[in-house]
Structures are given as C-alpha cells and as structure tokens.
C-alpha cells in the first residue's frame, strides 16, 4: 500500500505536526538536559549536596565550586541540581495529575450531568472552601518518613478544582455541538465521546493549565517546606533554595540566581513544549499544511 492509501489517524497527525516545531523540540531537548544534569550531577562534581566545604564559606563561583558556596559551605551547584531533581518531579508529575484530574472530573460532571454532576460539583466546591495548606500540614505528619511522592499527590489534590469548574462549563457548551450529537447518534458511549471529542477540543486550555501548574506547584511547595512540611532539610528543592536565599539576592547573588535561573529555564522549557503541543493539536494553528 502506498502512503496515501492508509489514512492517517489523529495520533500520528498530531505527532507529525509536533515534530515539525523546532522550538518545542528544543524545549524537549532542554528538558532532557535538565533531567540529565539533575540526576547525573553527583558524577560531575566532587561536592555532594549535603557535604560541607569548611574551607570556603560564601565564595563566589570558581573552578572548584562552579556556582559558589553558601554561608555554611554547601556547594550551590550540588544544591541546585539536587533541588532540581525534586522540583522536576513535583512540577511535572503534580501538573499532570492536577490537570488530568481537572479534565476528567470536569468533563464527566458536565457531560453526564444529573446526580454525578451534583456529587462532583459538591466535591469541587468542598475542596475549594477547605484550606488546602492546613489540610496538607495536618496530614503531613501521618506520611512522615515515607516517600515524598505522597506530598506531590497532596499538592496536586488542592490544585485542580478551579480548572475542573472551567472544564465543566466548556463541556456543557461543547456537548450541545452537533458533532457531539452526531457521535451520540452513531452509538459512541459517553466516556469515549469525552476523551475523543470533548477533551481534545479544549486541549489549548488544558495545556496552558498544565504549564502554569508546573511553576505554580514548584512554588507552592516552597511555602509548605518553609513551615516544615514537604521537602525537609538536609534535603532541598528549588523552592526551598529560592525561599532560603532570596534574602541574599543583592548581597551574595549566586546563592539566589542559580536556583532561580534554573527554575526559569525549567518553566521556559515546559512552556515551549506546551506551545508546541497546543499548535500540534489545533488544526487552525499556522505552520506548513499537512
């Protein structure tokens, strides 16, 4: 069969369109570099994140300490990379969970309506009025000592509600569109309609939401860590580093600017990927015609 013979499915068309976007591919490459740097950094430098250099306190970047040292003699490069390990996972995983939950809950509530809608909207409103910060701090001791991945779940659990409400609203209008009627009248089950027609048609919203969530989750982790929940010393995250050293941004800037710079780079990479995904999903977006 020739290539024109087999019609292309959406998945391959979106992949093809995504691969055509240089910036987005750059974003992916950059993200991979960040991952590699974060996890391979112990091999790159002699200093570990929990290791003190008692000979150099608050030294600016040098060949020995690439990003300088802190007041206690910690190596800022080692700290930043260790922090990025945590933040990458918190940000990416948390954003995926939060946006995914928002999409599923919002779309099901909106599409099926009735009792399911009442229950899900009730849940959304309940979580919206509960002070998330307080709940996490109350629950934290229970998870103490266990994997900090639970912490990611907790953070995401208080992040999705507003998006879910937006998704529900958009679903209510999308489900009256004729192509959804058409799918229904050909017998496509409701859950398939949601994943096949409704969610792809709000892909732009979901992608933007996920990219915003990445940075927002990384930063909200700072607040919790500050109060002693979440990532605990001597372990670090980008958030705790930025929180700890923001005071010295003007006096000993390397302590602040390196973690902050990596956070910005990380968010930038995510944004580039998000933009690329959005354009790949959106047939109206520019770019060479397929």
């Amino acid at each position, binding site marked *: 069969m020739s290539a*024109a*013979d*087999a*019609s*292309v*499915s*959406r998945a391959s*068309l979106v992949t093809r369109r995504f691969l055509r976007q240089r910036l987005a591919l750059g974003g992916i490459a950059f993200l991979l570099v960040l991952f590699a740097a974060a996890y391979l950094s112990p091999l790159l430098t002699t200093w570990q994140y929990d290791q003190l250099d008692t000979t150099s306190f608050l030294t600016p970047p040098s060949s020995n300490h690439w990003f300088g040292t802190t007041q206690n003699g910690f190596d800022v490069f080692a700290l930043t990379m260790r922090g990025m390990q945590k933040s990458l996972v918190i940000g990416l995983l948390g954003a995926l969970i939060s946006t995914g939950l928002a999409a599923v809950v919002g779309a099901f509530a909106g599409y099926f309506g009735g009792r399911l809608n009442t229950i899900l909207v009730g849940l959304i409103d309940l979580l919206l009025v509960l002070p998330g910060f307080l709940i996490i701090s109350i629950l934290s001791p229970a998870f103490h000592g266990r994997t900090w991945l639970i912490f990611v779940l907790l953070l995401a659990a208080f992040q999705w509600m507003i998006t879910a409400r937006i998704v529900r609203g958009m679903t209510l209008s999308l489900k009256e*569109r*004729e*192509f959804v*009627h*058409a*799918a229904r*009248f*050909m*017998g*496509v089950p409701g859950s*398939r309609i949601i994943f*096949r*027609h409704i969610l*792809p*048609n709000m*892909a732009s919203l979901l992608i933007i939401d996920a990219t915003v969530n990445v940075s927002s989750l990384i930063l909200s982790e700072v607040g919790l860590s500050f109060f002693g929940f979440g990532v605990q010393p001597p372990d670090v995250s980008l958030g705790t580093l930025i929180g700890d050293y923001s005071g010295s941004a003007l006096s000993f800037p390397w302590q602040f600017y390196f973690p902050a710079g990596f956070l910005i780079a990380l968010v930038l990479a995510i944004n580039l990927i998000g933009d690329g995904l959005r354009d790949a*999903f*959106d*047939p*109206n977006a520019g770019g060479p*015609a*397929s």
Partner: protein
Amino acid sequence: MTDPAAPLLEVRDLTVTFASEAGPVRAARSLSYRVNRGEVLGIVGESGSGKTVSSLALMDLLPSHARVSGSVQFEGRELVGLEDRELSLLRGKRIAMIFQDPLSALTPVYTVGDQIAEAIRVHNDVSAAAARDRAIELLTLVGIPNPSRRVASFPHEFSGGMRQRVMIAMAIANDPALIIADEPTTALDVTVQAQILDLLQKAREVTGAAILLITHDLGVVAGIADRVGVMYAGKLVETGMVDDVFYKPRMPYTLGLLGSLPRPDQGAHQALTPIEGNPPSLVNLPAGCPFAPRCPLRIDKCTQQEPDLVQHTGAHAAACHRSDEVERRRAAGENVFPAASAVEAVARSTRSERAPVLSVRDLVKEFPVLSGGVLRRRVGSLRAVDGVTFDIREGETLGLVGESGCGKTSTIMEILNLAPPRAGSVMVLGQDAATLTPQQRFRVRRDIQVVFQDPMAALDPRLPVGDIIGEPLETHGVAAPERARRVRELLALVGLQPEHADRYPQTFSGGQRQRIGIARALALEPKLLVLDEPVSALDVSIRAGVINLLERLKAELGLSYLFVAHDLAVVRHIADRVAVMYLGRIVEIGDVAEVFERPTHPYTQALLSAVPIPDPRKERSRKRILLQGDLPSPLDPPAGCRFRPRCPRFANEIDDAGRQLCHKDVALEARAGGAGHLDACHHSRPAPVL
C-alpha cells in the same frame, strides 16, 4: 435644488482593500453603479462576494484598516474622504441602514421608544415628548400592535420580525433619501419575511426613498427590485432591469445561479445545474475573469484578461467575453451548463406495499419549565412536540417543514434519541424505541443516521476527516484495514478525493464539509437518513450540487430521507411527501405535488404564498397571504385549532357557527384533499397559491 434626473447615488470605481497576513484582500473591485431616486436596486451575490463590504463602504462604516478608493457621489456630494463628523450628519438622516440581525442592531438596555427617539433627536431639534410621539407614530406605521404601550418595551421583548420592524421605523424616522437594507430578511422566517418585504415597499411609498437591497436570495430580488446587480468575487458581473437579468442573462454566472435554484412552483422534474468549484479567494486573484475556472464557456481569453462591464441594451450590462455566445445559446434553447445527469426514477411499488422505515405515532416532547430562584422547581412544561404522527416508507423522502419554533428539530431529536418518548411511540424498522434494550438500541443506530445543518459545527474540528468518517465504523467494530478501505470508498461516493482523509475539516469549503457529513452518515449503510436543514447553510451555487448528490445517493442506495427544512423550494424539489408543522403539530401532510398545488390548510397556503419565486413576472403578479402577528408562545398555545388567532380564514371567510368549531380541537385527517392528503382544519378547502 439638484437636478431630479440626476442619480441619487452614483458609485464609481469603488475599491475596498483589507490587509491580511496572506496579502491584500480585495473585497470590492472597481464597483460602479447608480441608484436613482425612489427606485429599488437589488445587489445579489454569494457570501464573500463583497456585497456587504461595498455597501458599508458607502457610509464609511468599515473598520479603520480597510482602504477605500474611488468615488461615491450622494446627491451630488462626494462621500469618500469626507470627515466622520460630516458623514454623521448624513447617516440616519439622508441615508439609513437596516442590518441583517435585528437583535444585535438594537441596544438591549434601552427601550425601543428611546432608541427611535434618539434617531430623531440626533438630527432634529425637537423635545423629548415630541420625539416620543413621533416614535409611537412610526411604530404604528410599521405595524407594531399597541404602539403606545410597546414604545416602552425593551428589544428582547420583541420577536425577530418585530425587531426588524423597529429597525425599519428607525430607518424611516428622518425621511431618508436612501435606505440601505443589508440582508434584511435573511434571519427571519418566510411568513415574517413576506411581512417585512411588504413593509419595506410601504416604507418606500411613504418616504419616497430609494432602497439599496443587498441579499443572496434571488427570489426576494425578483419580487421587490426594479434593477438588479449581480456580484461575484468583489465585482459587478451583470446589471440591468430585473426582467432583463432574470430572463435574458448575459453572464454565465447569473445563468448558473438561476439554474441551480430549486423553485417552489416546479417539482422534481426540474433539473438543477450546479456550478462546479468554489468562489475564488479574494487574496491574489489570478488575472482574467474570476469566474473562468468554473465557467463552461471558458476560452483562452477569459483566463488572460478580465472582462469589463459592457453595456448591451439600455441599462443591461454584463462583464463577460462570451455574452453573445450566452445569448445565442439561450435563443437556440441550448444549455450553457452541462445538464446534470438525471437520476433515473426507480421503479417502485405503490406506497402502501412498501414497508414503513419509520413510524411516529402521537409523539410528545416536553421540556420542563423551571422557576427562577435557588430551588428551580418545575412550574410547568413546554410541549415542543404535541402529538405528531407520520410514516416514512422505504425509498421515500418526507419533507418536514415549518418555521422556527414549530418543533421540527425537537421532533427529529426525539426520534434520534431512540429513548422512550413522554407519550406516543417511535418505531424504527418495526422496532419500538420504547422497548429497546441498550444493545438493541445500539444496533438500531446503524440504520438511522443524521446529517446536520451547519457543516462546520457537525464535524469535530480536531479530528482528521478520515477519523471523522471512520468513527461510526470504529464504534460498530469494523477493523482498521477494512475501515480505511471503506473511508476511501465513501469519500469517492460523495465526490471527494481519497487523500482528503488526511486533512482537517477547516481546509474544506462549506459544500465539501457537508459532503463529509453525508459520507459519515452513510458509513454504516443506514436505511434512513435524517437530514436537518442540510443545505440551508450553503451558498446557492453549492447547494444544487449537494441536492443532486442526495438525490443520486437515494436512488443508488435505496435510502429513505426525513428531510427537515424551512426552505420550501428545496423540499418541493427533493421530497416525495411533505408534512407542514405549526406549533408542535402537523397541520397538513400529503404528496408533495398535491400539497404544493392544492394546499388545503390556511397555514400551508400562507406559507406557500410567502415563498419568493425567482421569477419577476410571476412574483409581481402573485398575491401574498400575509399572516398577522407572530407565532404564539408554545408555553400557552391557543385552545382548539392552534392557528386560529392568526388564521385569515377564521377572520374573514367563515361565519360565527364556523368559528365556534375552530375553538374545538382538530384532528389530522383526510378532508378536502385527495387520498393520503391529510389536514387539520375544520374548514379545509383547497386553494392554489403558487
């Protein structure tokens, strides 16, 4: 005083250009025309032909990035390049405008009285009280009942037709010399359209104003205009007296438009000749005649040099290198456009011998009416469909017609849902929808598929066409390789290319998208297609192609159609039987020729008399039955015969004893019509109106 013989409006070389990313869009290209005092000039064209843009340019109402050049002389005064302040003195006073959508043309937060008064006081130094009195006078003139009370109403309290009347009242408030009416009846139902066109005529008589009527509907032009201009790709391609243009067109495009238009006074034997292809994009127009790629008379010269508008006789002019050839062929009775291959009539057994594909009995669809406030209790119900009964037999097309709000869409949605109805029954291929198990219902869906009105909204914009057409197959368990083969087969069946499967819907034109929708509906080889206004969103020249396709498919695949439409001409052309709905009930049903030629119900008669026919002589000699008022609210339908409050027969033709009868409910049964021709009128009487 200006010379009375001088034209009121003279447009010369009017060109409008918009900047766009793809390059300059030349929306209007050297337009020249004139409007004399008191005459009606109709400008017809399809969407994108530049008819609206050029009329907005007259009064400089275009967005600021539009570049306008050329000359517009109004009462001897040049308007192009005039300051906005000076133009404002003319707008609404000497030149008035009526827009297409009467809802968005009125400000929702002011009463209509205030808005009319504002139109008066902007240009005249009169007191608020005097302006209000004049507003009431104007509302009386345009036929708003109870004007002294309605003057204090807000636009949302009016129906679409009433709002358009208010717009007309505002337009004639200052006795303008020219009224520009941009598609004034497009958003309205056909009986309301008749009322509004009648009112426009009246407004012209009262004010002596000339009317520039912009529309896509040749039937409307035939009835009301003195002269007509046909636009294509931003240019006037033919102008002349209405009779000349309609009976002796000299431009193939005009001829094509007229030939592709189904006529309500001619049945299925009328062969529609579609114009192949699509209107050109106004960016980077190629040299030569813009119609050349679609023109059957094309010669080399046509692709090299764009023809000018050349005067033929009197006011008749056409922009075509080959108008003499068009003329010759018309005189010789030859076709210019290749005649569509006639669909062979299928030899069919008599109707009663064929099995019913769909039977609907006393179907009721109710919507709950909820109270405002937090609790939203159910306070009543709206019966959108109230006891509808019809059958569709194998190989038959039933046209379901009616105006908006009559319940035709609710009826088909209820049928397509295949859920147990509130009352009555829906039987698809002998299976009762009320007793189906979910598995059975899933299987029945194979046999009943739907094509929607809006070809853009009906296709998921995020799916490639191959996935769209393949979706029903996938849902019903067809394996991927077979699916791909079938998708190609379906694309070919509806006249598209197999490689179109890899594209997204937005890369297609309206007509092509509708073909994709039809291909999807045919994927499962259904027995019955429900067509919900399948051609009403398409341009005239495209429409004929889709209608012909539907007719061919019906003959080839032995389909039955439930064809829902408000356009009676299309129904006349495509349907075997027709059912007329009014306020949730069928008022008349029967064979299409029978119902169109000998309608017995007064509503059908009014409806048919309101349909414009693209034939100026016939149109001028017709007498319209104008209905009073609007559709009553379905929340509180009149007791007895629902048509009674608006019925001309009830009002004029019958005595009191007969009127008593009308207060009683009326069943759909055979009365004055022939066999199989049922109506719901106590005083059923045939009266030809077409």
